[in-house]
């Protein structure tokens, strides 16, 4: 198990699975307040960062491309919060 966890790709996969289940638990157990929606959006950004950095191996890639992908994830996550918060 420790050998499995030493590999960054494996750690990222476990974290992504855990964050997906956490998102579901937040949604199932609660009435979604703006704070919880912001938390879900933050989880989306963290998951996106893991995929971009670890899976896509963009750690050492062109910085413009890396930040364009990160901006895409951050902007739509923020939009999700803004458009939800306005009606709650």
């Amino acid at each position, binding site marked *: 198990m420790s050998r499995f966890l030493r590999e960054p790709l494996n750690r990222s996969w476990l974290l992504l699975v855990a964050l997906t289940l956490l998102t579901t638990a937040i949604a199932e157990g609660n009435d979604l307040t703006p704070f919880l929606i912001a938390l879900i959006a933050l989880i989306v950004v963290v998951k996106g960062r893991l995929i971009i950095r670890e899976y896509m191996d963009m750690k050492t890639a062109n910085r413009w491309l890396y930040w364009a992908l990160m901006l895409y994830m951050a902007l739509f996550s923020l*939009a999700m919060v803004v458009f939800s918060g306005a009606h709650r």
Partner: protein
Amino acid sequence: MSTAIVARPVTQAARHTPANPAVWVFVLSEMSEFAFFFIAFLIAKHLHPETFADGPARLNTLAGVVNTLLLITSSWFVANGVKAMKRNHARRTLGWLALTILAGLLYCVVKYLEYLWNVEHGVAMRANLFFALYYYLTFNHLLHVLIGICVIGWALLQTALGAYDSRRHEGLEGAATYWHMIDLVWILLFPMIYIVG
């Protein structure tokens, strides 16, 4: 001055962007397409808040969660496939790519079952604007998964034919990049439709 001349090639060599510029133009075009869908969804939500507030509760969240886990896992498979190729383990790459295709096919099966469940529970495209956008976005994403399965299948065939090695595997990286893009889009799509609405 001389330090800068020496340092520059080292920095450029250390930076490696997966695949090639043509693949990135394609991937960014696809992401732009989904960006317009997301904007349309958010504008529709702003105009019809009560319709969108009730939408997620009528969807099959379990199917969305299972598909998220399948896509995350398939991305992990393909990333391992690229890593194995970088270490010149072509046979291992074949195995990882086959697992990626399997996970992609399972995603399609779950999506099919989800649509069947929708029909049984009266979740129809014409019911309201939320469901129309739900079907449009998820079916469009499904089409991209099917294209992705073909792309990964092509990379698998090239790997089997010995077209790649630890130094030359741009095509494999391109296929993997496309697959990860599908995953990234779903990571936004899942909470936007199934959870927050």
